[in-house]
């Protein structure tokens, strides 16, 4: 057995007495190699003879009695309820559920994502942090502000959509954002809604604004935004509250 590697030699020393009982691949490899080595056949004959003698060892009736109730020692069989409530199974189940929920949220986000989602979310944060004193007081209908944006700031197509054009404003401000570019922010009297107008993201290859159809909703830290794109400008109406607070404005017929 000297020609076997040390690992295989160790395994061959513990070779199962019946070859069919080899528990794993390493042992099967050790057995197949050891069979070519002189001395292994003698070892196996030796082991079989000893095992036969062990099997022939008489068991006294006294000891046989100990095992009369052998079934008693079997553990209680677990039913599915016990198995399901085992801490390890429970922990794995909870972990899988959390993973599934997170995956679903991510999938849902991807499904509802649109070009400019990240910027719109950032502006929702801006809406949450802007104080009323930061706005320049302008009391008019939101739909008339496009002239102001064009004349004063040279912002073309910064038009408030018809759904919000009749709303009364209480203030306006225009600021530069690293990501969004020039942003027009309008504060409305009703429900303290804020409107944002900012340039749509442009395709890196064609240079054309990336557009999408209809209204898209985003939510962030208690704020909800409804976003639309027209003529290369994104419009977002933001409100502190759930989606249903904005829905009535968006379902209004266009005037």
């Amino acid at each position: 057995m000297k020609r076997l590697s040390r690992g295989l030699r160790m395994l061959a020393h513990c070779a199962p007495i019946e070859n069919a009982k080899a528990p794993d691949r390493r042992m099967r490899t050790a057995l197949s190699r050891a069979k070519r080595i002189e001395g292994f056949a003698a070892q196996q004959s030796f082991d079989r003879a000893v095992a036969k003698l062990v099997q022939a060892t008489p068991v006294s009736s006294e000891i046989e009695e100990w095992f009369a109730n052998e079934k008693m020692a079997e553990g209680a069989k677990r039913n599915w309820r016990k198995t399901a409530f085992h801490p390890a199974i429970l922990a794995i189940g909870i972990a899988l559920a959390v993973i599934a929920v997170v995956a679903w949220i991510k999938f849902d986000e991807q499904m509802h994502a649109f070009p400019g989602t990240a910027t719109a979310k950032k502006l929702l944060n801006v809406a949450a942090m802007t104080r009323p004193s930061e706005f320049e007081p302008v009391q008019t209908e939101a739909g008339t502000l496009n002239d102001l944006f064009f004349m004063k700031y040279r912002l073309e197509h910064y038009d408030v959509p018809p759904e919000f054009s009749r709303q009364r404003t209480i203030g306006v401000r225009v600021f530069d954002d690293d990501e969004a570019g020039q942003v027009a922010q309008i504060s409305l009297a009703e429900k303290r809604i804020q409107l944002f107008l900012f340039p749509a993201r442009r395709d890196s290859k064609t240079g054309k604004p990336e557009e999408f159809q209809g209204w898209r909703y985003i939510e962030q830290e208690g704020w909800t935004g409804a976003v639309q794109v027209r003529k290369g400008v994104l419009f977002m109406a933001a409100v502190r509250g759930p989606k249903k607070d904005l829905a009535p404005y968006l379902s209004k017929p266009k005037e």
Partner: protein
Amino acid sequence: MTGEAGKAQDIFQDTLREAAFLAAKGEPPPDRTWFFREARWRCLDVVAQGVQPEQGTNESTEVSPHAPEQIEQLEPEQLAIWISAAPEPQRSALALYYLDEFNYREMMSMLGLKLNELSRAIASGRREFQTWLNATVPAAAPE
């Protein structure tokens, strides 16, 4: 392992009682090796309090091709006595190995041995048994 049926029975019953206690707590022994492992530790505890065998260096001889014929002439009790006189963990390793019910992984788990230790215990056990066999039942002269 204990050399006394009374002690063995106590250990047997204590092991079963422990298994029943665990089962009642909803954590039944995971497999049959648990019983062997538990019983062995109890045996070692009991044996440690009794008379200890002398530690000696046993002579060893390579396994002979004639060993099966020599072994056939033995009584099972002779083998049992020889194994029970071996030092731990060789005694447990040989007992489990020749029961031929466990694979090497199960034996390593039950005895708390590494592969090289288990291998050494079994291989040296074989050689020492062959030496004893040669002295007890001399092989027939080759024709």
